[in-house]
């Protein structure tokens, strides 16, 4: 249980490689039915391990609260996003947090910051999750083709990945959002997806390369199973765990990138509030003491990313056979 103190994404793999081998194949699945107990499938086992990871459970709880707030928050909130309140004065710097407005009010239009955050959660979380799906889909397809086919196609696809990874992606995403998206949420999601699949495809390719050589695949091939069935029934299910872990990290990255692009004004149109674009002009009013406007949305971004990373760590511990103790 010492693995509660997990680390950040990239770093863990280095450390785990050392701790793992001792207990790698002692997961206990076999014992279960010999004694007559109900046998658990892969996902039930994973959940049992996941539950023991305290931070991951906290993260899952936080995520659930955030998603709930995003779904029902705008309905329950006393202020409507599309009705602009009547400011007290012509020029206002907003008001600090109070009981009526727990996160304070913005400068200029004097909007309730909590209302902005709750409304922003919808678009921000939606972008984070759906662009992840696009990225994972493209990455898995490319990686699977590359790893399964090998040869010329593998070489070609991997050179394309090399080129994509050599691009300054933050710049490219910024430019693409400005030139193509025109503030549209869907196009932003597509752009984020198109520039985030490379890591996944390398991962999937390496998984396919190693699983392809395993005995059960050889056995399947020997009895004449088709390529299609080998890919979808034999290889992919065995590759799914690392993909899930990598996907959880993509969500966090996409949420931060979206916030940054929209903050600069090149992202989502302010008609659809996100955690980035509600801060677009917040910096101007810092000197008048309006700290609550940028503070709370940023805090929510931090909490979200923390939650996603915690869940990712829990998933890694629960799903990655190398760390299964």
């Amino acid at each position, binding site marked *: 249980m010492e693995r509660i103190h997990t*680390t950040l994404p990239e770093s863990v793999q280095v450390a785990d490689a050392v701790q793992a081998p001792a207990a790698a194949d002692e997961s206990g699945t076999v014992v279960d039915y010999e004694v007559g107990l109900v046998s658990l499938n892969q996902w039930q086992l994973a959940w049992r391990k996941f539950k023991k990871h305290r931070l991951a459970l906290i993260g899952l709880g936080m995520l659930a609260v955030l998603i709930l707030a995003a779904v029902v928050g705008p309905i329950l909130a006393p202020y409507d996003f599309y009705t602009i309140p009547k400011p007290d004065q012509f020029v206002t710097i907003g008001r600090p947090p109070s009981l009526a407005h727990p996160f304070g009010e913005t400068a200029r239009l004097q909007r309730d910051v909590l209302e902005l955050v709750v409304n922003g959660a919808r678009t921000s979380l939606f972008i984070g999750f759906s662009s992840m799906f696009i990225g994972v889909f493209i990455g898995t397809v490319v990686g699977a083709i590359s790893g399964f086919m090998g040869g010329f196609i593998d070489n070609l696809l991997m050179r394309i990945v090399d080129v994509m990874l050599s691009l300054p992606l933050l710049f490219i995403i910024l430019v693409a959002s400005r030139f193509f998206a025109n503030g549209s949420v869907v196009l932003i999601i597509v752009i984020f997806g198109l520039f985030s699949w490379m890591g996944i495809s390398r991962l999937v390719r390496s998984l396919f390369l190693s699983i392809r050589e395993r005995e059960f695949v050889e056995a399947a091939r020997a009895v004449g199973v088709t390529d299609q069935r080998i890919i979808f029934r034999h290889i992919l299910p065995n590759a799914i765990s690392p993909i899930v872990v990598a996907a959880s990290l993509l969500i966090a990255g996409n949420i931060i990138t979206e916030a940054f692009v929209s903050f600069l004004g090149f992202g989502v149109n302010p008609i659809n509030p996100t955690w980035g674009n509600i801060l677009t002009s917040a910096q101007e009013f810092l000197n008048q003491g309006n700290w609550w406007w940028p503070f709370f949305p940023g805090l929510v971004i931090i909490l979200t990313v923390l939650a996603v990373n915690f869940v990712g760590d829990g998933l890694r511990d629960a799903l990655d056979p190398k760390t299964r103790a």
Partner: protein
Amino acid sequence: MTKFVIRRVIQAVPVLLGITIVVYAILLSAPGGPIAKYAQNPRITESQRNEIIKAWGLDQPIPVQYCRWMGFCDKEQDGLALVQANGVPNVFPAALGGGTNGVLHGDFGHSLETGDSVAGRIGKAALPTAILAGLALLIWVSLSVLIGTLAAIKRYTFFDNLTTVFSYVGFAMPTFWLGIMLIYAFSGPGLDILPASGMTTIRSSPAFGSDKYWDFLFNNPLKALGDLGWHLVLPVFTLVVVNIAGDSRFVRASMIESLSQDYVRTARAKGLPGRSVTFKHAFRNAMLPFVTNVGLEIPFLFTGAIVTETIFSWPGIGRLTIDATRDYDYPMLMGVLLVTSVLVVLANLIADVAYAVVDPRIKL
């Protein structure tokens, strides 16, 4: 070794070529094209627009445009003219009678917004970015090594847990948010002790990079450098906090792995003093993967500070890119994207070679 370097350089060529195509394709497919800026302008007539299209070569087929932009084709002749009128291929350096157009000859064109040469603007913006990101990189890499190693040695102690918490939070923190909060804390209405924007104090010093500034720096080096240093505090701090999170965890993980190796146990069993084992045996080997990691962060000197530069109005590459993006300044964007991509490729190359140098076990 030489063979390895040559092989890696040759491998980099198709990647570089691919990058030019991708960069070109992205901007080419943008709706409207470079001429879109003028489409809405009532002062520019239809015929003037056609003049611009002709002058910029936008009436040519796309392969020809790309070829001219790269510098393979002569732009004085029509079509795919690979060879100049004087019989010398256009790709050759100008000194050998080759052409002068295209990125291969260092000609990135001129900004649509200001008319300045793109290469000149990039060169000018590179120095402020290099100062900011270079200093930040130096600080966060050394601090990461220090913190990561200590955390690995004192694993699961209070110090280790504290750094874990900090790196989790640092990892989740958007750079722009940290920057804004720091400005509020140290340059806001309450505590106004640090400058929040720019590289120099406007009232007491000329603008950075101008001729007057170099005179000023030469005459009052202490004052000028002090002022610059003062302006560097907040942006550098922002970059260090955000980037130290990942790197210190990397060092920690690598050090923990190294400490559990057999040769470390052997060294201890031989009765070597603990400190010597930790630093001579474990630490040196733990640094190997980190060298590659740092090598991959070098392009950051050029690109990574984009957010920080925006928040702190730092006149570097990041600001240049954001301004060019906002203004649809095609030549500027193509220049910036291309130069930064080339730097990424170079950094990958350097990281590979550096890894081979520090770890003799790597087969060349």
